[in-house]
């Protein structure tokens, strides 16, 4: 059976985050130029959750964004873009279908585990199953990959891509593959932006229970203060490290996605002709900086290099500051777009 080279002319644009980067690049490929920041905002990706009852390597889960896949599906819906999703029981079927789509020059988005992606720097390769990339060709025994968090396109042997697409563990990708089918109407960008902002604000302000949104931040702050006594210094520092990793390691653009969201607000200010959103941009930037302050202090505690003022209560105070600022900002944003 022949194994022809296929190389779809796909424009690789490096992005801060995988899901938004893939969506932005796929949309651009299909003629709709939407930036990563706009995807993040229209898809209402901004979020916060502290979920101590869910464990990753015995450490609590903290998330700064909405559930995986939701940014793409919401963005598609708001922009009138029809996407086709598939998942597969059999890895062979999953790879054959990929080949078929590549054969008709359709670039395919794939959800994968990160562990088997051999082009990742070694220290990023964990069993994390919520990564996204685009396959845009094949050459010899390799697939051509546009992985948006990397500067340039990369290649990966077919066997490794298959393993990554069918990785096991929490939230296994099951070979999930998606493409943009068609853009069914003119995107109403102002409306999509307004609805996205409203959704994010409501989620952050009004999610039920103690673990999500602003309440989740306050809950995390109150827990952080208790960690040294409850867990001992050693384990407490691992918990802090976990929060920092979720905030900064997984491709958030810095500050737990707050900088990307600020960039979105700035673009929206122009598109909506609403200068008040420029003020919101600045406030969100300052909030992102506060999250970074927390990460800096936390990392010094992890390294046992903390000064007198760098303590667990001080970290909790920074998070409370973030909570108060975000709460006021979301309330004001709802008014700004009303």
């Amino acid at each position, binding site marked *: 059976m022949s194994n022809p080279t296929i190389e779809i002319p796909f424009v690789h644009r*490096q*992005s*801060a985050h995988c899901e938004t980067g893939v969506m932005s690049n796929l949309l651009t490929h299909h003629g709709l130029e939407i930036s990563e*920041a706009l995807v993040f905002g229209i898809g209402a990706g901004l979020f916060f959750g502290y979920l101590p009852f869910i464990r990753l*390597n015995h450490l609590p889960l903290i998330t700064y964004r909405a559930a995986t896949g939701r940014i793409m599906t919401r963005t598609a819906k708001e922009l009138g873009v029809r996407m086709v999703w598939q998942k597969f029981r059999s890895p062979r079927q999953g790879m054959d279908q990929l080949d078929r789509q590549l054969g008709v020059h359709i670039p395919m988005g794939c959800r994968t585990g990160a*562990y088997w992606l051999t082009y990742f*720097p*070694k*220290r*990023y*390769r*964990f*069993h994390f199953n919520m990564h996204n990339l685009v396959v845009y060709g094949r050459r010899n025994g390799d697939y051509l990959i546009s992985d948006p*968090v*990397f*500067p340039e396109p990369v290649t990966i042997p077919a*066997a*490794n891509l298959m*393993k990554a697409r069918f990785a*096991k*563990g929490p939230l296994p990708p099951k070979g999930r593959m998606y493409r943009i089918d068609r853009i069914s109407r003119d995107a109403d960008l102002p409306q999509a932006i307004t609805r996205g902002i409203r959704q994010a604000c409501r989620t952050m302000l009004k999610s039920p229970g103690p673990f999500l949104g602003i309440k989740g931040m306050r809950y995390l702050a109150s827990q952080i203060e208790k960690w040294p006594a409850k867990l001992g210094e050693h384990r407490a*520092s*691992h918990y802090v*490290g*976990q929060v*920092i*990793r979720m905030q*900064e*390691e997984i*491709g958030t*653009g*810095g*500050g737990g996605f707050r*900088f*990307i969201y*600020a*960039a979105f607000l*700035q673009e929206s200010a122009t598109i909506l002709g609403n200068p008040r959103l420029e003020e919101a*941009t*600045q406030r969100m*930037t300052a909030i*992102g*900086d506060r999250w*970074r302050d927390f*990460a*800096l202090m*936390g*990392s010094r505690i*992890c*390294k046992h290099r903390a000064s007198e003022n760098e303590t667990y209560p001080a970290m909790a105070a920074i998070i409370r500051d973030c909570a108060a600022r975000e709460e006021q900002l979301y309330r004001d944003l709802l008014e700004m777009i009303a």
Partner: protein
Amino acid sequence: MRIDDVPQDNGLNEGVKELTYAVDEQGRYVRVTSLGWEPKTTTNDQAWEVIDGEIAEAITLYHAGKRSPLAFHMASNLMNVALLASYMNLPRWRVRRHLKPKVFENLKSDLINRYAQVFNISADELQQVPPDSGV
């Protein structure tokens, strides 16, 4: 974060540039590459310390005759019994048994080959465990 403040701390990224969002002097957002940030390297190191500890323990237990080579390969692939069992399509109690030296020694080659395939190594390499560094 201002452009001037975008960190270029090489470490975790091994020279691979990531993308961040920062503001220029006019307050306009620009996409800026970063070589890395020290807190990220610190916390990533911390996570790897735990993993390296588990790998070292598996090596020690192997050389003490208490674990099969499988324990080492499982740890060095960041897996636990549940995850490995999932990859092997086996119940957990069977994978746990395979961690015992005597049981592993007598494993059929079919299972050995399947384990090796999960880890992307040869059946020979599956039998190998590094020397105990005694740390």
